[in-house]
């Protein structure tokens, strides 16, 4: 049943905090860092005002924040945290542990450039660095998507076939601090949608038990795992990501019934007859859509392929949506030093390598350290893609756009 919704003015960070208030997790352990601070501030106000039942742990570092969440989630609690850039870097070893122990923690990443030099503004260098840690990664275009993802994430991660932690990524300041209209569900609808956390059962040393730490049903999680077992446990994580590819659309469909907003792994825009298409992640995709409408008026068959879910990477959906689009430009908001290209570009190219009909693909690294991604810059990318199309080859595989020569 579609729920009656209330329109609220919220920035992206507030949308995270508000959605999380409605989810009412058992534990929130977080340490403030720009541009994520508003999330922690708002949420601690909810705790102080008695609006949530959450145990708020004011930790001394991000390493402790995620460690607390790991401990809490292992006992069966719903645990949430949020961070950005250097905070995520400090969590580093625990991100892998959370995923390997199969703990469905939800973490908002308010994307910020990694130091040095110190920079508080947006790019994707923080979460892209964590792309191999085993977390599901959702990238949001606007605060509405942020709100919705912060509710859906619990169901995706806790899905019995998945059991993985989820990062909800939103662009620092561009989304984090910008007021937008957000349609919100009633508390009751959110509560019903996420339900209670479900548990898989595992064969522990004393027999079959629910997968959570319980003194009455003792269980050991993640002890020494050497050459003889570690590889098998990694295969289980590979499988879980494969299952997530199936589970995420299921959760999206279920959420659409409640909210009327239907998300997917990829969101195409005017792709049916597109001759030049851009793909990328996050808030810039709104600007791309605006530019596409202008270009269409001018007779350019431009299209957009917004990637919402980066982990697991939706290879089949990508190939299907690109179809016979001849030229695809990838927008990468992170550099991978010494690599053949940006992280998104490399994976897109890998996805198409075995395809007989594959587009010409070029990489455009942009927006590092919050450098503005203006409509003019996006126009420049489309112009470059049109040149590639008329020439029939990619002259410059990786370009850096919006940087001074």
């Amino acid at each position, binding site marked *: 049943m579609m729920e009656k919704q209330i329109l609220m003015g919220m920035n992206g960070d507030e949308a995270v905090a508000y959605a999380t208030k409605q989810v009412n997790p058992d534990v929130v352990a977080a340490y403030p860092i720009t541009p994520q601070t508003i999330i922690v501030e708002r949420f601690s106000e909810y705790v102080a005002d008695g609006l949530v039942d959450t145990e708020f742990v004011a930790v001394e570092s991000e390493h402790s924040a995620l460690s607390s969440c790991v401990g809490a989630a292992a006992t069966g609690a719903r645990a949430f945290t949020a961070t950005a850039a250097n905070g995520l870097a400090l969590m580093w070893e625990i991100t892998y542990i959370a995923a*390997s122990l*199969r*703990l469905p923690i939800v973490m908002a990443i308010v994307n910020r450039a990694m130091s040095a030099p110190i920079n508080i503004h947006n790019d994707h260098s923080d979460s892209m660095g964590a792309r191999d840690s085993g977390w599901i990664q959702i990238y949001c275009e606007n605060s509405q998507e942020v709100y919705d993802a912060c509710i859906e994430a619990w169901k995706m991660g806790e899905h019995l076939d998945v059991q993985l932690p989820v990062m909800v990524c939103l662009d620092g300041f561009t989304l984090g601090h910008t007021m937008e209209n957000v349609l919100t569900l009633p508390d009751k609808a959110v509560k019903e949608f996420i339900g209670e956390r479900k548990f*898989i059962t*595992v064969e522990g040393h004393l027999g079959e038990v629910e997968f959570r730490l319980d003194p009455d049903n003792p269980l050991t*999680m*993640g002890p020494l795992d050497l050459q003889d077992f570690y590889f*098998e446990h990694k*295969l*289980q994580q590979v499988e879980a990501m494969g299952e997530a590819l199936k589970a995420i659309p299921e959760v999206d469909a279920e959420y659409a019934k409640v909210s009327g907003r239907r998300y997917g792994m990829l969101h195409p825009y005017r792709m049916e007859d597109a001759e030049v298409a851009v793909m990328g992640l996050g808030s810039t995709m709104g600007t791309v859509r605006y530019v596409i409408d202008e270009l269409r008026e001018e007779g350019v068959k431009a299209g957009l392929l917004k990637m919402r879910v980066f982990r697991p990477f939706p290879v089949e959906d990508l190939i299907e949506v690109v179809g016979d689009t001849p030229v695809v430009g990838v927008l990468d908001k992170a550099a991978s030093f010494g690599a053949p290209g940006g992280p998104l570009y490399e994976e897109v190219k890998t996805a198409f390598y075995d395809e007989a009909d594959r587009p010409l693909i070029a990489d455009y690294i942009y927006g590092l350290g919050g450098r503005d991604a203006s409509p003019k810059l996006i126009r420049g990318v489309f112009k470059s893609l049109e040149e590639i199309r008329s020439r029939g080859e990619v002259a410059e595989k990786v370009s850096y756009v919006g940087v001074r020569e």
Partner: protein
Amino acid sequence: MSEQKPGWRELPKGAVPYKTSEEYETGDWGVERPEIDRSRCTKCMLCHFYCPEGAIKVREDGYTEVDLRYCKGCGICATECPVKCIEMVRKK
């Protein structure tokens, strides 16, 4: 170890060990094993307390005994024994 280990589809998720450490016999790791000369042993039990594996137990008669299913052959017992009645000998 020649036991048949389960594959990734069978193993419990979340890196939950499928058996206890009691069943995980580490006795074949070492090169040497301790041999106690009970004619000189004073039943001080220091080897029992020093063993990092808990592989040396105290018997009813007060003497200690090494459980070779778990002893990794580190030799700490032999080093700590005040009367030097424990000798490390090469396993055959």
